């Protein structure tokens, strides 16, 4: 969507606008994560495990009804968690349909089976088995993507990272991912400011070679800034006692509500496995 919105503008304008888009998307996600919805009240670890427990049967089930049921459950969870359908439609459903649709497109025509029709003009025949396998692929991906986006939109990103500890992801990995998330924004803002300042001193459109030169120069400056920053950050960590090992303080506590939700996720997952065999 961002590309379509920015078409017709110059290279600098498009680049700057895409930085703003990225920041806006993040702010939207953080705003949704702070809303007073159902999933927002659930412990991040429960959400992570629960969503995984729903994604696995969605990927494994051999029944449209089961996968469809899980998709409807995801929509229901989105509604109860104040996640906008418009956002899901634009950022997940249409994007996934286009992407997966391209992959699934040949399936009806190349899969052996009962022929149920023929394309006008081209004369290609398609089979019910082929249509079913394309349908499975699209529905599975739509369901899994919706569930993943629900997790991200209803949980602050850092809580998602901390929840990864429950899957035995090492502390150092969680910390590095957290710091990356923290500094991506700083560098995004720096890049945005660099492009803005260049834009403010330019008139007219850039030629192809000029665009490449601007992009290369900006990448170089940004990389140099990143090196300086990473070296200073390391010193700041050392200054407060960092000696190669990271320690975290886990503040999350499981409440009764979380156990009930976890039990709910487990039951639904088990039922989906059973019915979807």
């Amino acid at each position, binding site marked *: 969507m961002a590309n379509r919105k920015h078409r017709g503008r110059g290279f600098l304008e498009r680049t700057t606008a895409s930085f703003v888009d990225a920041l806006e998307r993040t702010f939207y996600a953080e705003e949704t994560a702070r809303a007073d919805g159902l999933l927002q009240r659930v412990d991040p670890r429960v959400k992570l495990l629960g969503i995984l427990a729903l994604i696995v049967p969605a990927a494994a089930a051999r029944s449209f009804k089961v996968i469809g049921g899980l998709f409807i459950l995801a929509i229901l969870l989105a509604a109860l968690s104040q996640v906008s359908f418009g956002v899901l439609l634009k950022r997940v459903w249409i994007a996934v349909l286009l992407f997966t649709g391209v992959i699934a497109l040949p399936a009806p025509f190349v899969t052996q089976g009962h022929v149920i029709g023929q394309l006008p003009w081209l004369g290609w025949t398609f089979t019910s088995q082929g249509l079913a396998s394309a349908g499975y692929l699209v529905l599975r991906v739509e369901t899994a993507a919706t569930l993943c986006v629900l997790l991200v939109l209803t949980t602050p990103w850092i809580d998602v990272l901390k929840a990864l500890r429950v899957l035995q992801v090492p502390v150092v990995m969680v910390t590095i991912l957290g710091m990356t998330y923290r500094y991506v924004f700083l560098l995004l803002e720096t890049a945005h400011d660099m492009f803005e300042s260049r834009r403010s001193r330019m008139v007219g459109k850039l030629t192809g070679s000029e665009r490449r030169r601007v992009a290369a120069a900006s990448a170089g400056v940004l990389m140099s800034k990143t090196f300086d920053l990473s070296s200073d950050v390391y010193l700041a960590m050392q200054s407060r*006692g*960092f000696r190669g090992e990271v320690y975290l303080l886990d503040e999350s506590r499981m409440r009764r509500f979380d156990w009930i939700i976890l039990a709910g996720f487990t039951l639904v997952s088990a039922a989906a496995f059973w019915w979807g065999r």
Partner: protein
Amino acid sequence: MNSTNPSDAKQTPVYEVCDVTYRYRQVTALDHLNLTVGAGRRVALLGANGSGKSTLLRILNGLSFPDKGKVNFCGEPLTEEKLQRDGFGLEFRRRVGLVFQNPDVQLFSATVFDEVAFGPLQLRWPHDKVRQSISGILEMMEITHLKNRSPHHLSMGEKKRVALASVLILDPEILLLDEPTAALDPKSESHMIDFLVRSKGGGKTIITTTHDLGIVEDIADDTFVFHGGRIVAGGPPSEILNNVALLKQTSLLHSHLHIHKSGEVHAHPHLHQHEE
């Protein structure tokens, strides 16, 4: 150059910087520098950008090490080898805190809570003590409401306060502050100055780099002027601030055009005065 209380003449100084030279990227940042800082003193290091103040703070914090000369900390040489030892290293980090000029460097954790907890956790404090200390320090710095916020959502003033809290939680005896009032709006600046003024008599040794001459008398007992990697003058703030020739020579004071109420426009060096 000395910053020691005459009554504590026999007490071991906190820092003795002896003939230190430090080069960074082919530039001599510190040039045969000598400085002694006594316990409990509040010291201001004045100097224009690039005069070597921040480099000295990093050396005092054991993050960089001199090419020549030596630094003693409480009578013991401060070396890379000693800092790598768990006993000395962790104790030194507890006793000496550095607040960086750029808070984005210092705020590397994902939330304010994690940031403030980082130091105590690295020093292996018990978790209950960490939790209690965090509540106390957030309240003291009036940033409890920012606890779960990500640093990239904070204003510059808020970032500086969080950076200070992340160091103060360790209750360091020696506090090194690199340009604490730089790039702050007036309200945040006054918060920071209030903190520095209140810390007088608290027993902490505070070494502050600044080129904001307006705050020096409030935050320091002793002042040293840096120029080209050397200390060119030292003394009580009033003495240094009255030496206009010195301040102009070290680029701390400049003349710029300004308009008087009478409408007269002219240039001369001047210091801004605070109201009583």
